[in-house]
């Protein structure tokens, strides 16, 4: 089991004929992802790695049943492409593109909310369900199947921590990058909710960073979770008010500081690692406690006692 995607998920690649689209289509196919079609306006009739290319999303959905679309579309065309995918009936979108104008994101998210679509990103590496399906650009080699769910804002920091987990023999159920922009489709809470309900996930790793309030918003929900959550928050020593490349990492108004986030999460029963390299150890402890906990799996309706 996994969240959001699995080996059945049929995937469309929007912007499949660009450099990135082409390379990662090949990578996704190699990982076993069920990529069924691609779209690039004007490239109908082409094939990329054996995948047929269409002019429009509707042309693709007329021929294939499509569950999810991954967008490598240039930033200026992402709004149109995302609305196109949703209007054609696709209900899971992974938007890899960075630098999408934020007002375009607001419109994408409003439409997604209205019709009930799930948007991952923009500015994300995507979703990986190790051994089953990979949608996006994450390096395949670092993942390994297991029971740890990972949700993160940052890409390379995810790779770092997931790489550590795998190196220590701790596999993952699903790894989700919600995206590094200020406005993204899924919050930490949205993904935590899915992990809580996923029978294959036993511990969740939340990789946050300073700026915004996504981590603080997650805290109240975590108190209701039955599964342990381990966190790392980047930016403890970042200079306040300096641009960090991510718009979300600009510290605003006291909220969003490292200490504010850390306190909120710890009060919700989360064990917060000081360094990324400590995450694996804490997860291993949690895993071993789970197996020693005689009530685990029985008392779903009670919140987990704080450690």
């Amino acid at each position: 089991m996994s969240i959001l995607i699995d080996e059945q998920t049929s995937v469309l690649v929007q912007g499949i004929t660009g450099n990135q689209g082409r390379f990662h289509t090949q990578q996704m196919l190699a990982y076993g992802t069920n990529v069924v079609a691609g779209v690039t306006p004007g490239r109908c009739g082409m094939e990329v790695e054996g995948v047929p290319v269409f002019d429009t999303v509707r042309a693709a959905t007329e021929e294939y049943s499509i569950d999810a679309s991954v967008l490598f579309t240039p930033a200026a065309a992402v709004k149109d492409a995302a609305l196109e995918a949703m209007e054609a009936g696709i209900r899971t979108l992974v938007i890899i593109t960075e630098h999408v104008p934020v007002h375009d994101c607001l419109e994408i998210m409003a439409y997604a909310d209205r019709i009930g679509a799930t948007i991952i990103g923009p500015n994300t590496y995507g979703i990986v369900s190790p051994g089953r399906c990979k949608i996006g650009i994450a390096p395949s080699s670092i993942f390994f199947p297991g029971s740890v769910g990972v949700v993160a804002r940052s890409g390379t920091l995810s790779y770092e921590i997931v790489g550590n987990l795998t190196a220590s023999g701790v596999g993952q159920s699903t790894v989700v990058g919600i995206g590094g922009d200020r406005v993204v489709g899924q919050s930490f809470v949205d993904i935590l909710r899915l992990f809580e309900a996923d029978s294959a996930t036993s511990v969740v790793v939340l990789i946050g960073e300073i700026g915004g309030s996504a981590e603080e918003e997650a805290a109240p929900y975590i108190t209701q979770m039955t599964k342990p959550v381990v966190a790392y928050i980047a930016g403890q020593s970042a200079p306040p008010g300096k641009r960090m490349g991510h718009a979300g990492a600009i510290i605003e108004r006291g909220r969003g500081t490292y200490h504010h986030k850390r306190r909120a999460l710890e009060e919700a029963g989360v064990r917060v690692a000081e360094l990324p390299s400590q995450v694996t150890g804490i997860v291993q402890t949690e895993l071993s406690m789970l197996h020693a906990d005689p009530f685990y799996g029985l008392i779903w309706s009670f919140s987990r006692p704080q450690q």
Partner: protein
Amino acid sequence: MRLFEYMGKQLFIDFGIRVPRGMVCDTPKTAAQIAQRLGGPVMIKAQVLSGKRGKGGGIRLADGPKESKLAAEQLLQSTVQGFPVELLLIEEKLAIEQELYLSLIVDGVSKKPVLIASAQGGMDIENVPEEQIIRQPIDVELGLPTFLARDIVRRLKIVPSSPCGKALTQVVTALYRLFTAIDAELVEINPLAICGDTVYAADAKITVDDASLYRHAHIPTVSELTLGEQEASKLGLSYVDLDGEIGVMANGAGITMATLDMITYFGSKPANFLDIGGGANQEATRKGLELVLAKQPKAVLVNIFGGITRCDEVAQAIVGIRRQYGKSIPMVVRLAGTNQDAGRAILEKEAGIEVFDLMQTAAQRAVELAG
């Protein structure tokens, strides 16, 4: 991208929001001429991007041309919160009866624009009691229709159908039109000044979404970057100057921050950092590394987790730099991910640089070398 007050006010005028009469100038003489033309007492406002300009001494009241010239002279030689004053806005002094606060921001939590308003403007909105702040999320498919603007005016305890209430209603709808038209992340009027039946935007704070600038050729460019940051920006990289001992290069905002955190954790401080993001090529990486070295740090820590970024390209860039700059500044390199073995081979054989597998050991080594 933040805009200067006078630029914001020009946009306000374009969208039908009234601002005080005024002009910009960069010499005391012109300041006096403008004051003469405006007549009566004037406000002389330093055009800097600091948030606390008033408290920082950047705003002066002057009574007539002579006083204006003097105040302009002083301001043009000063700095406000660290920003040198190069331009002044000279404006008529308003007879303000009430100061309101009004802004629109993009809110990541609700994934909507949020209008923030308060009958208590003129001070930091953070200090206004929570219950006196109106927060109205905006449904982007509906926009901000007149009825909503009218209701916001009512909640500000102003009769929406009074002349002043009607003027305010128009400001609210116009501000939303401006907000969407220029792809703003923030538009803020503080204070929004009520003078009889007229409403003036007495200040203007606007941040335009950088990612949207390609479609706003008419908006003037304002750069807040240092020289080094500008140069990195041209290369598509992010560089930030800090004041510690260790230069940092990493790829991705999260791992860059984590690298700074590690350096701090082990007892040192970063001198600067360069985030090469995903997929920077060898040439850009080499030039970025020059920026890191230009600060003469005591050591440099390179931390790469290759995904799109290829470790061998990074290694080549480091070798090039080492040839150019010699061994005066010690370099510690951590490579993982795509082509990590090739990268390690290049560095160890061609430049004799030790390569680490783990971020933590690399950071510890860098702190040691800088200590």
